[in-house]
C-alpha cells in the first residue's frame, strides 16, 4: 500500500496548477500554505459529490465538505505520502460522513421488502435505456440509500467514483478482501431491493 516518497520538487518553473498532488503537499509542508487552494480546486467537486452520494441531500454537502477540507488543512503537515492524497482525503470525508450519521442517530434497518416504488418497470427498459428516465435513476439511488452504511460506502466508491479495490480499502481503512465481500454482499442486497420492480 505504501508508496515511496520520491518526489521531484525541482519543478519550480511549472505552474502550481500543473504540479502533482505530492509536490503541492511538499510545498505546503515547507510553509507555502497558499498551494492548498490548488488541492481544493482539484478535489472539491469530488468530495462534494461523494458526500452527496452518501446522504443524497444537497443541503448538508457544502458544510460537510468544508469541514473535510479544514481537517485536511490541519492534518496535511502530518501527511506521510503512504497513500495518495485523494484516498487520504476520501478517508477524511468518509469518516466525517460516518460521524454525521452517528450524530443524527439515523438507524437504517434493512429489509428486502421495503421498496416503496409502485412503478412496474420492465427490466428490458432498465437495461436498454440510456438512463434518461429519472424514475429509474431515482429508484436505484433510493434503493442504494436503504443499504446499511458499511455496504453502501464501497458501492458508492466503486460505482459512482470509479475507485479500484485498493483505493477503496485505503479510503475505508480496511482490507481489500473486506472490500470485495462487502461489495458482493451490498450488491446482492441491492439486487433484492430492485427485483420487485421487475416482476413482470
Amino acid at each position, binding site marked *: 500500500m505504501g508508496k515511496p516518497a520520491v518526489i521531484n520538487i525541482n519543478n519550480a518553473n511549472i505552474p502550481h496548477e500543473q504540479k502533482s498532488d505530492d509536490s503541492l503537499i511538499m510545498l505546503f509542508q515547507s510553509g507555502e500554505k497558499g498551494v492548498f487552494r490548488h488541492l481544493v480546486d482539484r478535489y472539491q467537486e469530488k468530495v462534494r459529490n461523494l458526500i452527496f452520494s452518501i446522504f443524497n441531500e444537497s443541503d448538508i454537502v457544502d458544510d460537510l465538505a468544508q469541514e473535510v477540507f479544514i481537517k485536511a488543512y490541519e492534518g496535511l503537515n502530518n501527511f506521510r505520502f503512504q497513500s495518495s492524497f485523494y484516498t487520504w482525503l476520501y478517508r477524511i470525508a468518509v469518516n466525517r460522513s460516518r460521524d454525521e450519521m452517528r450524530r443524527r442517530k439515523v438507524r437504517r434497518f434493512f429489509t428486502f421488502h421495503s421498496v416503496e416504488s409502485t412503478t412496474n418497470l420492465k427490466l428490458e427498459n432498465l437495461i436498454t435505456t440510456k*438512463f434518461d428516465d429519472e424514475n429509474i435513476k431515482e429508484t436505484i439511488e433510493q434503493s442504494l440509500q436503504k443499504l446499511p452504511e458499511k455496504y453502501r460506502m464501497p458501492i458508492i466508491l466503486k460505482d459512482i467514483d470509479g475507485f479500484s479495490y485498493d483505493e477503496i480499502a485505503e479510503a475505508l481503512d480496511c482490507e481489500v478482501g473486506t472490500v470485495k465481500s462487502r461489495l458482493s454482499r451490498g*450488491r446482492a442486497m441491492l439486487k433484492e431491493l430492485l427485483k420487485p420492480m421487475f416482476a413482470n
Partner: protein
Amino acid sequence: MKQFDTKELERIISLFLDGELEPDEARKFEEFLENNPSVAREFKILNAAKRSLSAKEKLPANDWFWLRLSNTIESKESRKAKLIPTARPQLALTMAALFTVAVIAAVYFKDAPLFHKFFVDKKNQVQNSLMTGNILPLFSNLDKVDVLNFALFGSIQIDSANNTSLRVKNTEDKGSQIEIVRREHDDIIPVVSVSDFCEKVGIIKPQQQLTVDSILGTYKEKLLASVLVSENKEIAIHEQLVDLNRAMVSTIAASLEPRQRTKFQRILEEHQAPFAVFALNVPKVESQLLLRNIPRMSRSNKYVVISKDTVSIAEMKMNIDSIRDVAYRQRSMAHRIAMEQMVREISELQRQFENNVVISGTQSSRVRVFSNENAFRINLEAPAAIAPEFEMVEMVRPRVYAPSIPKRGFKGGVTVIGDSAFSFEIPADDEAVRVFKRLPRGEFRFEIVDSIERSPKMKIMFKSTPSKREFESKLREMRERERELIDLDSLLRESERTLNSEKPTPPKKTPKVFDL
C-alpha cells in the same frame, strides 16, 4: 462450469461486474450465464444499477466554496495565533471570567424559559439578518472605460453578454431611481473610450491625462463598494450610487480648463447624457486639491437591499476594505459570471412582481419598487436624504431635455407661465450663475438654455408673480443703461421686499409676453 453456493455466486457476479475476474474465469462465467437465465437476469439488474450509478448527475459547482473555506481557515489560523502566546494564568483568568458571566447569566435568567427565549430570539435575529455569508462587490472587474461611461450615461452593464444593465437617475423633484433593466434589441449603448474622451475634450498634457485617470481610478473604487452581493443571494446598493455619476461628471468638469469644459459639455449633449455642465467659465480646480477632497469612505451606511422577494433600506456597517481585498483575490471570470447570474436571477424574480409596490423605511426615506417584464425600478423618494457628499465643486445640473422646456411665448422677454409663474432670460455668465446659486431654492429655478453656444443663456423661472412689475421696471431700467450684467442681487432683494409688503396680484388667464 461448476455450480456455486449463493455466497460464492454473489462474489463472482460482483467481481465479473467490476471486470476483476481473470480472463479464463470470466469466459467460463459468461458460459455459465448463458446456461442459467435466472442468474443472467440478476446480473442484468446489477449491471443496469452499476451503469445508472456511474452516470449519476453531479452537483452544480459551488463558486463560493473556496472563498468560504479560506475565510474559515484564516479565522482559525488567526485564532490559533492569538491562543499560542496566551500564558496559562491568562487562560485561567479567561475561564474564570466566562464562568462568572455564566453564573450571572444563570441568575439573571433564572427563569429557564426566559433564558431559552433570549437565545432563541437572538438566534432568529441573526438568522433573519440581511446580507449573510460572504459579501463581494458585483463590479470587481471594472476598468476605467466602464467607470467613464457610467459617469457619462449613468448606466453600467451587469452581465458579460450585455443583456442587463444597472442605471441610475437623479432628479431634483422626484428623488432618485435605480433601475435594473433588460436591454431591448434596438437599444444602442454608447461607449466612449478614455482616449477618445481625452482627444475630444482636448486633454493633451500628460499631467492632465493623469488627473482624469486618477479621478476615474478613485471613483472606480467607490463604484466597486457601491453594489455588493452576498452569499445568501441578496444585492445591496449603497445610496451613494445614485449620486456617483453626477459627482464624477462634476469632478471631471472641475479639472478642465473652460475651453475643454465647453467641449466636454458638447460630448454630454451629443450623447444625451443625464447631466449638463453649467459653470463653463470658472477656472479649473487644481488636481491635487480636487483629488484630496474626494472622500474615500462614505459617511452613510444606508443600503437598498434587494432579495428575491423584498426590497428594503437598511443601515449596515460594511468593512469595505476587507470586501475589496477579498474581491481582488477573487477576480476570476467564474466568480464574476456566478455573481452576474445571481443578479440576473434576482432581477428576473423581482420583475415578476408586476406593478408591485414595496414601501419600506420611514417618512424621510422611502423606497418603492416598480416592476414590469423588462425592468424593475427602485425609487428612493427622499431626495434630501441623498446628500451629494462627493460633490465639492458643483458644476452640473440634471440635463433638461427639450420637450420639458415651456415654449409658450418665450422670446427673450419676461414670459408669464400659467397662472402665477413667469420667467425671463439673461446671459449665463459666471457671475449670474454664482448669484443664483447662493439664493434659496423653491421660489425660483433656473436652467441653462443652449449651453453649447458661445454665449449660453440662462432662463430664470419664478413661481409667483407679485413682484413682476418691479422686475419689469428694473430690467427695463437696466437695459436703458445698457448694462450687460444685471445686478441680480439687488434685483432679488427688491423682489423679496416687494413680496413681503405687497399682496399678490390676481392670476392671469392667458400667457402674455412683455417686450422689454
